[in-house]
């Protein structure tokens, strides 16, 4: 009798301890979901708030006028975003033209040819490049690239330029997107199975032919995804571009012209627009354009990359 009772007690004790552990487990699980929910709401909150604030300008002007008109006179009530959109596209495209071939060749070399030791040496350099603050890149542009264009490249092309130009923005931005392009392309190349390379080499192809006809073909979607990602990074870059691109609200006609990309527009004017509500609304519309473009680019490229990862795993 006595024996039994103590056993029951002991069992109760064990089960209550067990219960407590399980309850802790359940509560922790629920608790951990909270930040995840918060972060999920964040993107929608940003979108909603930007949309809310750009409503005023969208109700006054049709959206096509805003996007395709090139007259920007906020005080006179002209809000044409065309020069800014073109400025962004010019600078970003130029940066990608410089950056894509160099990054892909570098990634191919690191993945296919380089000795593992060399790879280990190069890796920290690329990480470091990714960690340099954008203001420092901007300063580098002002100190080296801008004078270079003003004193050498522009005269060589037979034009006069202050140096603060699309070309300067393109140069600086291309260096800034090297790390992201190289590291993602490298990762994508690594997902191509070794057996495929071996099969091609066995058939008598040399290493370059294998890269060209097997590896790159297989890695093609992933590389496109990397490029889209790099493009969207360049698209939203603010400070470095702002410092070297000249900030003149005109539709550019050559790479030696200054431009005024959307992020620079927002950063430069945001402090002072509070007095004119419609101007505020116009800038919020600019931010909305930027946000929507970046989100779309990111979703596309991430979707492709996730699919590739899943195929490998």
């Amino acid at each position, binding site marked *: 009798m006595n024996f039994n009772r103590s056993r029951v007690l002991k069992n109760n004790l064990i089960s209550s301890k067990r219960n407590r552990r*399980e309850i802790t*487990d359940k509560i*922790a*699980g629920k608790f*951990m979901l909270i*930040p*995840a929910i*918060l*972060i*999920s709401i964040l*993107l929608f909150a*940003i979108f909603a*708030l*930007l949309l809310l604030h750009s409503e005023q300008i969208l109700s006054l002007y049709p959206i096509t006028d805003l996007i395709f008109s090139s007259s920007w006179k906020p005080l006179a009530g002209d809000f044409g975003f065309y020069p800014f959109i073109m400025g962004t596209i010019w600078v970003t495209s130029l940066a990608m033209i410089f950056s894509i*071939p160099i*990054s892909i*060749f*570098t990634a*191919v*070399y690191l993945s296919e*040819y380089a000795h593992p030791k060399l790879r280990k040496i*190069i890796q*920290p*350099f*690329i*990480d*470091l*490049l990714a*960690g*340099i*603050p*954008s*203001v*420092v890149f901007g*300063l*580098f542009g*002002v*100190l080296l690239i801008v004078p270079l264009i003003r004193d050498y490249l522009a005269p060589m092309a037979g034009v006069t330029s202050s140096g603060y130009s699309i070309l300067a923005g393109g140069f600086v931005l291309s*260096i800034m997107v*090297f790390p992201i392009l190289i590291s993602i392309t490298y990762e994508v190349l690594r997902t191509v199975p070794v057996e495929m390379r071996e099969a091609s080499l066995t058939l008598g192809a040399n*290493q*370059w032919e294998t890269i060209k006809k097997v590896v790159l073909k297989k890695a093609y979607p992933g590389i496109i995804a990397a490029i889209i*990602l790099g493009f969207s*990074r360049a698209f*939203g870059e*603010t*400070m470095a571009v702002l*410092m070297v691109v000249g900030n003149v609200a005109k539709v550019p006609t050559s790479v030696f012209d200054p431009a005024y990309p959307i*992020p620079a527009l927002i950063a430069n004017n*945001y*402090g002072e627009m509070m007095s004119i509500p419609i101007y505020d609304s116009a800038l*919020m519309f600019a931010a909305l354009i*930027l*946000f929507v473009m*970046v*989100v779309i*680019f*990111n979703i596309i490229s*991430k979707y492709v990359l*996730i699919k590739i990862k899943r195929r490998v795993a």
Partner: protein
Amino acid sequence: MIKRRNLEEKIFKSVMILSLTIVICSLLAVFATVIIKGAPSLSLEMITEVPKGGYYLGGGGGILNAIVGSLYLSIGAIVIAFILSLPMALYLNQYSERSRVPGIIRMILEVSTGIPSLIYGVFVFLIMIEVGARASLFWGIITIAVFITPILTRGMDEIMQTVPLKLKEASLALGTTRFETLIHVITRQALPGILTAVILAFGRGIGDAASVLFTAGYTDSIPTSLSDPVATLPLAIFFQLSTPIPEVQQRAYASAIILLVIVLLLSAVSRILSRRFMEYVVR
């Protein structure tokens, strides 16, 4: 025929080596330019004093306000980001088997890391207008925290995914709950990686200017409370560079060296720490 094929390979191989050289050289060029231009005006005064009267006209003083301001902002932000990120990363790796939720959250995180910091700055500024707040240390911290939380979570998540499944299974097989496995096995196993992710996110926070442009304000003194405005190192560089006075511009270059040194230190520390803690990791 064989010769032509091999020639083609040789050409492309040299193009690749050239590309790699360009990448490395551009990194070196950034460093060299900033150091050569900034070194002459680098002085102890720069890092030990706040700007004196007439600093932006070439007067005496330094940028201690910006250095301390940046540290305050980033330390505050990394603490908040860590508190939010760790549970999120743990959740993604343990509590979500066989559900679509982690996939969706990961996608949202990926997209969030791609949003330009400027947009986060605008977002927080809009909230500040709604609640009627002014630019201050507090709102600067919030901005950077919002901006680096996705980066930090993603970094931690990636590390935790590399923890071997067998280790988890061994722990669970001993009768632990998922929570216990998380705390005692996964977190420890991933510790070096978590540290690296934290330092990386910290570096992003300290180097970013666009996000705190409207939310942190700018001041020549060191903030004494959360409601004071605060200067940051990147913005100090930007503002000093925008003045027309050569001496002040010189100081912008010197400030950039200080910022670069901080970034380099962080990257060195993360490497050393992660190597140190690697000893306790089961592989």
